[in-house]
């Protein structure tokens, strides 16, 4: 099957929803049959920058694909073994999805216990003292009234 293909290079992580792409060439290709739409094999005519291609868009399938390093064949043909990039192919739909965000790089709910935060095995200790001026036994003198004497009665004879 012959169709149009856009050849890109990207240095972004495969897990990026929106990748920065550099277009290398738009060209005709041949997709070998039978073809799994999620993992097509694409043949193109060799050109010097072909080795930098690692990302492909096939308009016919409306999908972006990761491509392994091309295999060169006699007759100036480069063959790309592709696998679909679902994040890239459905980036807009995914972006519009209302979801529950469990973890995020920038948004943090700081008061939810985060079991992934690495903790050292040791703890740190703080001592916080409450000061008072009432306990003065250590500075007491013999005239200080620190004794309470209780006697029965209280009437004199």
């Amino acid at each position, binding site marked *: 099957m012959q169709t149009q293909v856009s050849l890109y290079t990207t240095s972004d992580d495969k897990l990026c929803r929106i990748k920065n792409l550099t277009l290398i060439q738009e060209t005709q290709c041949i997709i070998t049959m039978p073809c799994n739409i999620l993992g097509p094999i694409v043949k193109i005519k060799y050109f010097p920058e072909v080795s930098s291609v690692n990302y492909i868009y096939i308009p016919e399938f409306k999908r972006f694909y990761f491509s392994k390093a091309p295999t060169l064949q006699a007759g100036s043909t480069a063959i790309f073994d592709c696998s679909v990039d679902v994040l890239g192919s459905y980036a807009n739909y995914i972006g519009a999805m209302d979801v529950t965000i469990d*973890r995020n790089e920038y948004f943090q709910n700081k008061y939810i216990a985060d079991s992934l935060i690495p903790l050292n095995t040791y703890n740190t200790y703080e001592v916080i003292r409450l000061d008072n001026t009432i306990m003065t036994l250590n500075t007491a003198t013999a005239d200080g009234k620190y*004794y*309470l004497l209780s006697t029965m*009665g209280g009437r004199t004879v």
Partner: protein
Amino acid sequence: MTLNEEVYNTVGTDASGIGYGSYLQTMLTDGKLKYNTPWDVSNIYVRNKGCFLLGSGFENNRPISILKFTNFEDGNNTRAKTLDITSIDDSAIPYVSIRLMRLAYNADFSSGLPAQGVTWGNNVSTTGYREYWDIWRPVTNINFNNLVYTVYCQVLDNTDTDNPVYYTYSLDYVKNNLPNLYRFGFDGNQYLVNFSIRAFYGNAGERERLTSSYIFPVCELYFPSQNMLVYWKPLSQSYTQNDQYFGETRSFYYNTSQQRFYYPSITQNPYSGRLFRYTMHSNANNANQAFISTYPYPQSIDWNSLSEQNYIVNGLPNNNKPNFGIFMDYYPTLNTNRPIYYMSGILIEQTMNGLGVWWVDTEDSIQSETGKNCTDPHMHIGIIDEEGFTNGSGFSGSEAQNAIQSNWENYTDSPFDYTIPDNFGNLVSDISLNSPNISPLNTFNSNYLISANTLNQFASWLWNPDGTVFDDIVNGLKLFGQNPIEALTSLKLFPFDLTPFFSTTSSNITMGRTNSGINADLVTGTKTAVIDMGSVLFNAKYNNFLDYSPYTKCMLYLPYCGTVDISPTDVVGKTVSVKYIIDFVTGGCTAVVYFDNIPYVYKTGIIGFNIPVTSTDSAALTSSVISGTLNAVNSGVNVFSGNLREIPNFGGSLYQLSTSAKQTFQQSGASTGYSSQYQPQNAYFIVSRPSTNIPKTFPHTFGYSANTSGRIRDFSGFTICKNVDTSGIPDATAEEREEIKRILESGFYA
């Protein structure tokens, strides 16, 4: 809701058909509203569970906190005193307040500075400054679906620090074209410094900007623990200018000389970042107190205490210290024009949704349909749940037709009743100790405050071998006991001077009916039995979950009582104070530990060390003589003594108190009591905190706990979703849906 027209009666209707009531100040004067008293809530159309607006901090992961008005200076600032909310129990969460949204009306532009209600002083003379109370009226009648707000973002481009430029963009533009603008404060040259809203009113296609009047969405702070609605405040403490309403991006400080709170303008002009510093510098004295947004709530700090050492630790903000604009002056790589608050497009969106009103993220959509005809994806409205809460999420476009507000003709059609339920019981903000008028002391017996010197004199008299003294004592005691030593009920040593606790009169010590001739302070009454052992504000360290159980543990040592485990969850952000109630009869004590004004922990101990007066250690001979003298009358006295205990209405209970007190002392053990006096005499916490070891790459590779909801495109960076529903993605195969679900739930870069 059913508007209580006895409180919120319509006094006028403007040209737009908007009905309004009296000024708040008039309502306060008329007694329809009262300070520090829950206000009538019948004009509240929605509650907002959280505060999404702004937070302080320099880094993206700093806590988001609402400015709360605590630690007001007293001084002559009567308004601040009236609004004193310093004792709020906020459960250590910085934004426990619940926003109760209502609409306020302002049409008083006579000053030329409409709604410039940024001051709280009572002696404000500066032209143009007006109290909120003087310019706000409650809205009593409005077509809710005709009211739409636009949202604008103020962006500071500081690329050229000598010529910074301000831009105004729509929120839609910021979110789509400046997605990383929310990370500001330290890096980059563009900052999202502010946002404003403008009110439009009318039918779709005919909506006009309200320029001669203004409608504020306002809220109150509601503190459940106090059952108290504190005050109306706008979206945040801010102001309007040229009929725009600005969200808060500022700290504020109180100038005692002018009795006003100021909002130093950090972002309004290129040099205003220095205003805070400059103003404070030029008045560098203790009269100037800065009130700053920090966790857990604003703190008052003394300008003179500011120093690099206090606020910078290893080149980074000290998390234990307040953060505010002045920090920028000490951080050499920072530009003073950089704002200090965290704000993002997401937060603005959540804030607007939290208001529950219609709003558009681009002015191009201002004429779009609302309500049941809403289709414009730029038209938004906050989702109100079944209990009447918004949580920051919203409907957009045709989905907004499902919003409950779409059915409202008037905002009073809100079906929710926010009347504060009265089933909380008797809510109070503090629990006081009792102050009994009657003391067991000095009723059937006599008590003397004596010094060590006096005690020695007394002992010398008591153990004097002169037989006449013994005869006197024995004669005096025959009516009361079988043993003259019974006349000495107890002798206790306390670790503090007893003088402040009693009212006394000078008198000779008397045993039974025998006057010793030794002068001492006879107790005539008890002034107090409560000792203040100090207090401390228990601060958070990390400002996150690590400050709480089970990660952080703490133990409180209480002199004479031992130790008690305290849950940090109960005390973070609270003032912990300790009081001791002294039982002078038994020598016992009860330590009462307060969290703010509520006593939470009671722990008993022995604080009065009993001196065993029956001991014969130092006066064995004399003691044995006394005992021997009385042997002859032992049996008869025993009978009498027994009868005395059984005689009702003859002070029997007091007698038992005295004797049992003596026994209690002996059982407590002298060594235990006295050894306690060698232990620390201050209460203190030992806090065990976890130690983190977070690599710089952690957020980018693991992310932080978020537990929030929203559209994926509104987030960036490493993200993990929970329980993703992929059914809305068209054309994807089942395998692809599974793969999307797997990736979203295992981590990706949004």
